[in-house]
């Protein structure tokens, strides 16, 4: 059985793979493929954020009473990454390679240091505090994250 840390970390890696696809295509000047891949990446990340913000974080906050703690920081970083993704998507739409590389590079580092905090600190805390809910929570996260699922998709 998956715990929250494994399940959510796996989704981080899936997003990384699609990010790399978009980067490969953009570097090769294949704008159509790059836009399509970045579109899939963008959607996958938004579903991941959605699952965290609508299910995981509220459950954690409810259980621990920590509303202004780590989840608040993570929400703030989600806002920053949403802006960077919009910026990168706009650069791709304009076929502006330099602007895309700059914002994608910034996005990658922002995203990875965010993932690091979640995977090393927040998810282990979730597994610890939400131990009795993990069994029901993981399938709901799965439904939210899979393409076609989720309220916002």
């Amino acid at each position: 059985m998956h715990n929250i840390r494994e399940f959510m970390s796996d989704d981080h890696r899936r997003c990384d793979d699609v990010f790399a696809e978009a980067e490969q295509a953009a570097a090769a000047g294949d704008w159509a493929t790059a836009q399509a891949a970045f579109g899939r990446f963008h959607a996958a990340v938004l579903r991941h954020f959605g699952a965290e913000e609508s299910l995981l974080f509220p459950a954690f906050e409810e259980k621990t009473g920590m509303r202004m703690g780590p989840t608040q920081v993570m929400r703030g970083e989600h806002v920053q990454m949403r802006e960077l993704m919009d910026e990168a998507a706009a650069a791709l739409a304009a076929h502006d390679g330099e602007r895309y590389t700059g914002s994608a590079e910034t996005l990658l580092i922002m995203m990875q240091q965010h993932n690091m905090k979640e995977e090393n600190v927040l998810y282990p805390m979730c597994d610890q505090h939400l131990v009795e809910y993990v069994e029901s929570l993981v399938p709901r996260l799965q439904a939210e994250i899979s393409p076609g699922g989720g309220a916002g998709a």
Partner: protein
Amino acid sequence: MQALLSFDQAPPLDAPLRFFLTAPLFAVFAGLLLLWGGPDIFASRWTPDALALTHLITAGFMLQAMLGALFQLLPVVAGANMPRPRLVAGIVHALLTAGTLLLVVGFLRFESQWFRLAVLFLGAGTGLFIAAAAGALRGIPSASPTIRGLKLSLAGLAVTVGFGLLLAASLGWAFDLPLARLTDIHLGWGLVAWGCALLAAVGYVVVPMFQLTPSYPLWFGRAFSFAAPAVAFAWTLAELLEWQILGTVLAALVVLTAAGFAGITLHLQWRSKRARLDVTQVYWRVAMVSALVAAALWLAAMLLPALAEWPGWPLLFAVLLLHGGFMSVIVGMFYKIVPFLVWLHLQNAGRGRLMAPNMKKVLAEKSMEGQMRAHFATLALLVAAVIWPAWLIYPAGFALVLANAWLLRNLFSALGVYRDHLARIAALEVPGEGGPTGGM
């Protein structure tokens, strides 16, 4: 738990940056020392000038960079927050900088009072850092190889500094100690149980995440963080007890442990999914190759008496490992960390009213590439200068000055972008100007 609640408390920008902006200055001093000392500096690893040169690079460049990076990394990677990071960073930085200069003057003039002062300053600076970092890490479970590696490398630093202080004290107060033997222990711990262990702890995270490579094998992450200090410890015992053959075998194990890290890293980087090699990745790869060549040279010197008799081999080893290995990796990481931190702090300061310039605008790829070419030319010249010092020591010294002045200029240009952009944000906040302050 307390630490976790506040894990957004990334330290202020100046905490890591003051170290990063000082490090290249010491490498510039090292280049100037080569120009001033001339070919004699490479006569043997034991000349006072060579010792001064080594410490300008290890304590001046490397230690500055590594401590600066830890102020940033401990909260982000481990959720370990130091109390009052700005104050601690300021004090550690001042003591470390002064202590390194005192130590270098001590070697150059070989007078005891300088060593005594160096012991005082370096002991206080590194002691304060180790205490603050250990305090921040206390109670944080070793949930990943990175966190465990950070803790063990900190212990490696403590041992390295301990032997270093003992050596400097014996020069300052004329203790009767086996200096050559203790020096080897000091540098073995410094290079492997501190330097390589810290690099590995950080590498487990930054190599897969930023270069989009597969992860390090699980067994490696678990085994390495224990193996590095364990073999270093066994080897130290053998050295202190003067068990010659066992000592050599264990020293070879220490070298092979470090080489294992370099080999696996190179293998992973080969499978990177990034579209093209950027400056940081080239720096990493050259560093790992250079470290492997250094390890091969060390093993060859143990096996071939003819090579072992050449006084140049330890210098060549030092050039390959310190300049080619550690300095390359550090500069490569500066080029990711500094533009990202500038972006992050500007983004937080702008709060959506003014978009922060992306990393490539903070520090242009072209400036980094030019500096990197100068760095690698320096490496080639230093290697050649060990073999033909009379001819090449001056070009090598000049290149070292140039490459590091260039690095300094690049880092300051990123700081310039930061200040300009902050001024633009401040201008938005002036009331009554009618700027787009109201909206998001």
